[in-house]
Every structure is written in structure tokens, then in C-alpha cells.
């Protein structure tokens, strides 16, 4: 959270934006586009959806700016909006009978977003993480993302996701356990697969 400490400039932008100054809000968007987009990407695992979700999150923040409590950290409030939006989106996606994701190979998803200049290694790394997070429940995923990528404390995660602190601890514990198991199984399968390949080559 140290990365996103509030400055006087930010307070001024928020104040001006609350009074209807769109340029001030554009400054806020400029400042927080990366953390909001990154959160949406970690939650949704797709660049195009992440772009749309990040845009929508900022629009929701713009609409509800008059409800923002200045006692709270602005970034916590903003990421909370983005988390809730992504959770809703994941739920809707789950409810679809036929998902487009099922029809497309993993690698093709979101690869055509303009300006995506990430090297192949980074993409592989991101894909590994994405596949790990893919099978986790929406709120659990949000808790992991906020805790690990945004250094949110248990209290901040609880506040952002409207959960109790004990619920956050329990969810994080369960999710870590699940992720560790899946990672273990995946690596084991990879090692076994490699051995079989070597044996057949011999």
C-alpha cells in the first residue's frame, strides 16, 4: 500500500472532481489506471475484459464520488469498486451456459489487445498465474489478489470485500491450501510427463 499513499495533489483532484471537474477526474484515472487494470486482469484473466472492467470501475467511481468518505484511502475505495465489479462479472460469466472461453484455446484469449507489449516469458508467467487463479471462487480470488499484489492487510481486504476479518483469514487460508495443492499436482504432472517423454525418446 506504500506505493499508493495519498498526496496533497490527489486530495485536490478528488475535491475538484467531486465538484464536477472532469479534468481532475482524468488525472485520477491517469494515476490509478495501472493498479485498477492489473487488478481486473488478475481477476478476469483476459486483457480485453480487464480493459472494459477497469473503464467501468472508473465510471462507477465517477458516479459515486459524492459517496466517497475522505477518511478512507482513495486507492482502497477505488480497488474495492473494481473488485466488486469483477466479482459480479465472474458470477455472470459462470452463469452463462456456453462460455466463449470454452470454445477458444487458452493462448488465444485477449492476445489481440492493441499496445500489449509484454514479452513471451512474462506472458507465460502471467498465464501460469492466471490458470492457477482460474478455478478459485470470485471472492477468494479477489482476497488473494488484493493481499498479494496490493499488499492489502486483512483489515483492508475485509473492508474492500465487505467481509469480516476472520472470514478473510479463513478464505485466504483455504485458498492458499487449494493453490498449493494444485501447484503441486501440476508440477508433478509436468515432471512425470517429462520423464515419459525422455523414456520414449530412448
Amino acid at each position: 500500500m506504500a506505493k499508493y499513499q495519498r498526496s496533497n495533489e490527489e486530495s485536490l483532484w478528488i475535491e475538484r472532481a467531486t465538484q464536477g471537474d472532469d479534468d481532475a477526474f482524468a488525472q485520477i484515472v491517469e494515476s490509478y489506471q495501472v493498479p485498477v487494470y492489473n487488478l481486473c486482469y488478475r481477476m478476469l484473466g483476459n486483457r480485453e475484459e480487464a480493459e472494459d472492467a477497469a473503464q467501468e470501475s472508473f465510471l462507477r467511481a465517477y458516479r459515486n464520488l459524492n459517496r466517497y468518505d475522505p477518511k478512507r484511502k482513495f486507492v482502497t475505495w477505488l480497488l474495492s469498486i473494481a473488485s466488486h465489479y469483477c466479482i459480479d462479472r465472474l458470477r455472470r460469466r459462470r452463469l452463462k451456459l456456453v462460455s466463449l472461453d470454452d470454445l477458444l484455446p487458452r493462448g488465444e484469449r485477449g492476445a489481440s489487445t492493441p499496445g500489449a507489449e509484454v514479452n513471451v516469458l512474462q506472458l507465460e508467467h502471467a498465464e501460469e498465474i492466471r490458470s492457477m487463479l482460474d478455478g478459485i471462487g470470485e471472492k477468494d480470488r479477489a482476497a488473494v489478489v488484493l493481499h498479494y499484489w496490493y499488499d492489502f492487510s486483512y483489515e483492508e481486504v475485509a473492508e474492500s470485500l465487505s467481509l469480516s476479518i476472520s472470514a478473510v483469514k479463513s478464505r485466504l487460508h483455504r485458498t492458499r491450501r487449494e493453490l498449493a495443492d494444485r501447484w503441486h499436482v501440476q508440477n508433478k504432472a509436468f515432471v512425470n510427463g517429462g520423464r515419459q517423454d525422455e523414456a520414449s525418446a530412448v
Partner: protein
Amino acid sequence: MKHPQFEALLFDIDHLGHEERIALEAHLRECEQCNALAASWSDLEGKMLSAPQMEPATGFSGRFRERLVVYKRRKQERLTLVVILSILFSLIIVTGFFGAELLTFVPSAVSFFLKSINSLVLLGGLLTILGDFALVLLEGLTQNLPAGLLLAIVTATSGLGLIWAFSIYRTGFNTIRRE
């Protein structure tokens, strides 16, 4: 300490006290299952923490501004639609409540309007005839009578008119005072 409790410590390693840490390390040396889990989690956690920050394509804030413009336009359109629908709804309500009275009033209003127009036309015609008659009379008088006599007649008529107006005024005033 039981096995699941060590698992709990394993996943909350940043918040452990000194003694808990020592107990966990001792357990990990003995328990192969927990050791494998710890290694797996440590590996994955490392990957997660070192995962690159994903950035949006350039021009994100510009695209947001465009979205904001569209949002504001739609909001305005919705507001206009709401106002129109409210007016229509009010009209329907008014018609529902007072429709019967309005319908009964309409024919009488039309007939009143037509009668008024008719009376005005009649009055106009009468005034025109009177005006023509007065002109003919004046022309005859001015051509046939001497100027002195004409002046005397006009003065007398004006004087009589004034007396008549004054008497009307007095009668009216007295009537109001009596009432």
C-alpha cells in the same frame, strides 16, 4: 500441536511469533507431507509476487474520456425521456380524473365563443350604420346651416351631454352609497 495447526502456521508465515516459527521448522523436518506443501506454496507465492504488473494499452485515459462523454449523453437522453414520460403520465392522470368535466365543458365553451363572435359582428354592423347616418347628418348640417348657428348647436349638444353624464354619475354614486 496437531497437523492442521501446522498447516495454518505454514500459510500465515509472515505473522508468526518466534516460538511458532521454531515449532513449524521442526515439524517440517519431520513431516514429508507438510514439507511438500510448504515447498509448493513457497514456489507459487514467489511466482505470484514476481508476476509482472499488467498495464493497459496506451491511451487508456483518453478512452475513458470518450466513455464518459457517451455516459453523460445517455444520462441526458434518459433524463429527457423521463421528463417527457412524466408529462405524458400527468396528462393521462388529469384526463382520467377530470376528463368527464372537460368534455362537458367543451361544447358549452364552443357555443359561448360562437355567440360572442356573433354579438360582436352584430354590434359592429350597428355601429357602422350609426356612423354612416351621423356622417350624412353632419354633411347636411355643415352645408345648409350658417357657421354661427352650427357652433351654437355643437356647444349646446356638448353642454347637454356633459349634464347628462354628470347626472348619470350622481345617480350611480347615490345608489352605491344607499346600498
